[in-house]
């Protein structure tokens, strides 16, 4: 449902995205792996519109979204969670989710009602349950644990009811146990919502454990793609990346 054709992006003389071609099937979980600096986050930025492409095109379910800006891509159905948690420190979990939900339906121009009374309750509860945050509903975001903050980041993205969810290193900064909890949660979420997921990840066990298709990025270009079995056996990948051991 996501199709990227010949995408290119450079910064000054440095090629960040080198003729990338990529296709995702609907309702699948996919992973992008690659060493630091391979251009993974840049690719996300190009898809969501945070960065403009130099050339190439991007399609979602056959409609072109190349160079739409960040706000526009959210309306098309792309949502994204960030590598460095990007939440609202002084607002509670519930308030943040509510804001995201209201934002989608343009409800934030309303000056006549009280925010606290606003009816998005059941939607908010569903999303908080999906993200496992229902217990922390009224906690102030800055006081959440690192893991919960990352979950909140994902929950905010889910508020957009997206078709494609981009997760940038969802387990970054977590210990081994927490990582698996996060991945289980993502898997559960995927089963319940049936959205297409593309995530960036460094932990190979996780990637091989959950992804249906893997794309290997190196120096801005796709080195290899395929299911976990194929990638494990791919000589190029082993030489360039896996041989160095797990991150």
């Amino acid at each position, binding site marked *: 449902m996501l199709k990227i054709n010949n995408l290119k992006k450079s910064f000054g003389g440095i090629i960040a995205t080198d003729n990338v071609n990529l296709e995702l099937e609907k309702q699948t979980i996919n992973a992008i792996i690659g060493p630091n600096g391979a251009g993974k986050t840049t690719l996300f930025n190009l898809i969501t519109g945070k960065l403009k492409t130099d050339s190439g095109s991007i399609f979602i379910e056959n409609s072109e979204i190349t160079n739409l*800006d960040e706000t526009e891509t959210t309306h098309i159905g792309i949502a994204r969670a960030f590598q460095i948690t990007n*939440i609202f420190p002084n607002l509670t979990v519930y308030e943040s989710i509510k804001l995201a939900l209201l934002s989608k339906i343009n409800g*934030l*121009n*309303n000056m*006549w009602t009280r925010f606290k009374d606003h009816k998005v309750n059941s939607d908010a509860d569903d999303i908080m349950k999906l993200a496992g945050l229902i217990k922390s509903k009224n906690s102030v975001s800055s006081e959440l644990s690192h893991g919960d903050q990352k979950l909140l980041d994902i929950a905010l993205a889910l508020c957009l009811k997206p078709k494609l969810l981009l997760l940038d290193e969802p387990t970054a900064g977590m210990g081994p146990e927490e990582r698996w909890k996060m991945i289980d949660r993502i898997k559960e979420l995927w089963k319940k919502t049936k959205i297409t997921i593309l995530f960036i990840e460094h932990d190979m066990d996780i990637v091989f454990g959950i992804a249906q298709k893997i794309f290997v990025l190196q120096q801005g270009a796709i080195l290899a793609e395929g299911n976990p079995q194929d990638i494990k056996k791919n000589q190029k990948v082993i030489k360039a990346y896996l041989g160095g051991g797990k991150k």
Partner: protein
Amino acid sequence: MIAFFKKDTFFRDACLALFSWISLVIIFFVIPDPGIHDIIQKVFILGLFALSLNILIGYLGLIAFGHAAFFAAGAYTLGLFLQSDFIKIYNFGAFSIPVAIILSICVSAILATFIGSICIRLKDIYFSFLTLAFQMVLYSIILALVDITGGDQGLMGGFSKPPFLGIDLSKPFDFYAFTIFISIFVILMLRQIIESPFGYGLRMIRDNAERPAALGFNNQNHKLIAFIIAGSIAGLAGSLQALLDVGAYPEWAFWAKSAEPLFMILLGGMNTFLGPLMGALIFEILNDFVTANTKYYGLVLGLVILSFVLGLKQGLLDWIVMKFKESKNNNAQN
């Protein structure tokens, strides 16, 4: 009954507002000291000014250095209008003052739209400096157009305050009750705006300026509307001040005037809705008390601000609310 007061609704706020106004009116008779009445009036006028700035500072996270531009614009608009021939030509007669006030708000709003749309494109300190630069350009214009504005002497010649709707603003009680009524009414409206989805949108931008775009939200429009509201309320405050002083002065457009609401926000607190109003109260009382006893007002004010910045590290109302919540938590744990 307690439950009614705890529930955060417009109706409750309106009742509190009405109750406050009635109490203040009663105070007028119970304490017949004109000095006290003066302080109370000034607290509300400056409080409006500070509350309007806090929309930007406390709720949007935008530190505007040039907010007094709108205060001055409102004041001069009212003064110039009431002195002008418009009144005679169009025979507003009984409605001169309401029309003047509304006109002041409109002029401030238009100025805020112009200045705001340019300033909100910049971030952080550049935003702050640009608002200041615009204010000082306005100040220079006021000084330069001597024939119209009276230049550095201020608007001279005064103006009359014709009665309207049975209210005669030349009578102390009428002025007192009217000013406080308007102020409380606007504060009530502001409370509604701040507690509405729009208001929470402001907090969202303050907490994280980049994220809203990734949620499909347009920051800039929101910021501009908030800026215009803030400017309009400041203009209203300015027009009330002009009515009080029967004139307008260029000092109100000088950068030092923009520092006053900043102090009030610091003293009272930027994180509670009425913090700036409490700040205005502290500021006025300090002003009155200090100038009565010594001429070194700057020294005292400077020391007070320093102690708040280094000591309390937050405004008084913020601190009170924090202590209150802490004791509630302690009680809950016991």
